[in-house]
């Protein structure tokens, strides 16, 4: 399988990448780790005219502690996140989720920025960034801005990123206690129901992926949380649950409730 022809541009800085995005517009795609984009291009389901490789940009794959936040560079790979001591110490739930992504080889190349920008409705990170109230730093031709995780995911493969914008980093408030629980699809190993729960005091924040066409915060669960797993029954309240041959809506909704219960009781 060979992708259709494209022009390759290697960006050496964020501003160069943005200038290229601005120049080529809709015809361009950003190449980060490439673990979702390249297979789609090989199948010719995706055929950008220009590929802007951001893999070589300096400073985008650092993990730094900034006060009460841990800032993860967008080019950090899943393996780097899963193996980072800083992440393990301050946002362990993120490392836990990163370790469940794909497989060893995919984790060595795939990046958090690439995954979030791709916005696969069954990806693992979205549940975690939602539950953590992470903030996504993006840069475009108009400058930098931040997007709250809860405002970021708009639909299947659809985010609040503008055409000329690039994710540069994701900032996670430190988490005392959290857990990511995933029930995976047996072929792709993507989440059929992936549930991230983060505790702050008596409250929980619950992010769910794989269940709806957009990852979401389970507000009804958060409101009903009483310290037990009971609130899990509200995991899909107000949500249109996806259906496919691996899990129809009934079963997927059940899994969502079950995984939320498991996480809450975890």
């Amino acid at each position, binding site marked *: *399988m*060979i*992708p*259709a*022809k*494209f*022009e*390759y541009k*290697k960006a050496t800085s964020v501003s160069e990448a943005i200038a290229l995005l601005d120049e080529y517009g809709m015809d361009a795609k950003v*190449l980060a780790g*490439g*673990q979702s984009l*390249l*297979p789609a291009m*090989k*199948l010719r389901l995706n055929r950008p005219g220009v*590929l802007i*490789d951001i*893999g070589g940009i300096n400073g985008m794959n650092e993990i730094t502690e900034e006060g009460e936040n841990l800032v993860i560079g967008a080019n950090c790979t899943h*393996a780097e996140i899963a*193996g980072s001591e800083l992440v393990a110490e301050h946002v362990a739930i993120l490392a836990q989720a990163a370790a469940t992504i*794909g*497989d*060893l*080889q*995919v984790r*060595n*190349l795939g990046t958090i920025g690439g995954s979030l920008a791709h916005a696969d409705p069954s990806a693992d990170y979205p549940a975690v960034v939602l539950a953590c109230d992470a903030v996504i730093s993006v840069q475009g031709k108009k400058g930098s801005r931040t997007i709250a995780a809860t405002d970021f995911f708009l639909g299947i493969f659809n985010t609040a990123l503008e055409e000329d914008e690039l994710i540069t980093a994701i900032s996670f408030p430190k988490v005392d206690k959290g857990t990511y629980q995933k029930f995976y699809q047996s072929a792709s*190993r993507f989440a059929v129901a992936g549930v991230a729960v983060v505790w702050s005091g008596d409250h929980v924040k619950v992010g769910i992926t794989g269940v709806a066409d957009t990852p979401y915060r389970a507000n009804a669960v958060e409101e009903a949380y009483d310290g037990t797993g009971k609130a899990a029954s509200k995991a899909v309240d107000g949500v249109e649950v996806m259906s496919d041959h691996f899990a129809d809506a009934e079963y997927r909704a059940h899994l969502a409730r079950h995984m939320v219960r498991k996480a809450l009781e975890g």
Partner: protein
Amino acid sequence: MKVSVTINGKPHTHDLEPRMSLVHFLRDILNLTGTHIGCDTSGCGSCTVLLNGRAIKSCTILAIQTDGKEITTIEGLAPNGRLHAIQEAFRENHGLQCGFCTPGMVMTAADILKTNPTPSEQEIREGLKGNFCRCTGYHNIVKSIQQAAVTLNQ
């Protein structure tokens, strides 16, 4: 586009179409046909090589992305035509049948054992999640990696 990479310790510079994946570069241009292609969707792991020492799927990276980097393929795992301890262990434990997935399995095993020199059975099985074998049922592959771990730790 010009790509300069070090493959199995030797520098290579080639002018390639940007769309050429690393695996096609290895197989079609450099005749390193030990790295195999078993799927289109980054699923099977037959094309696994080491990029700067870590296992990656060479079908899901463009050759130009590896510019300036170091690649090790199955042909370069052990010097001078010898067998690496992992390769020896696969032979000793009948960890291969048709041989098609084998180079990918061995290269993945190299990453598993590098990052975790004493893996449990479960850790080995999870480490192999990205590699399909249709012949062995994985039984003897897992045994092979267990034995290689022992050898490499001696």
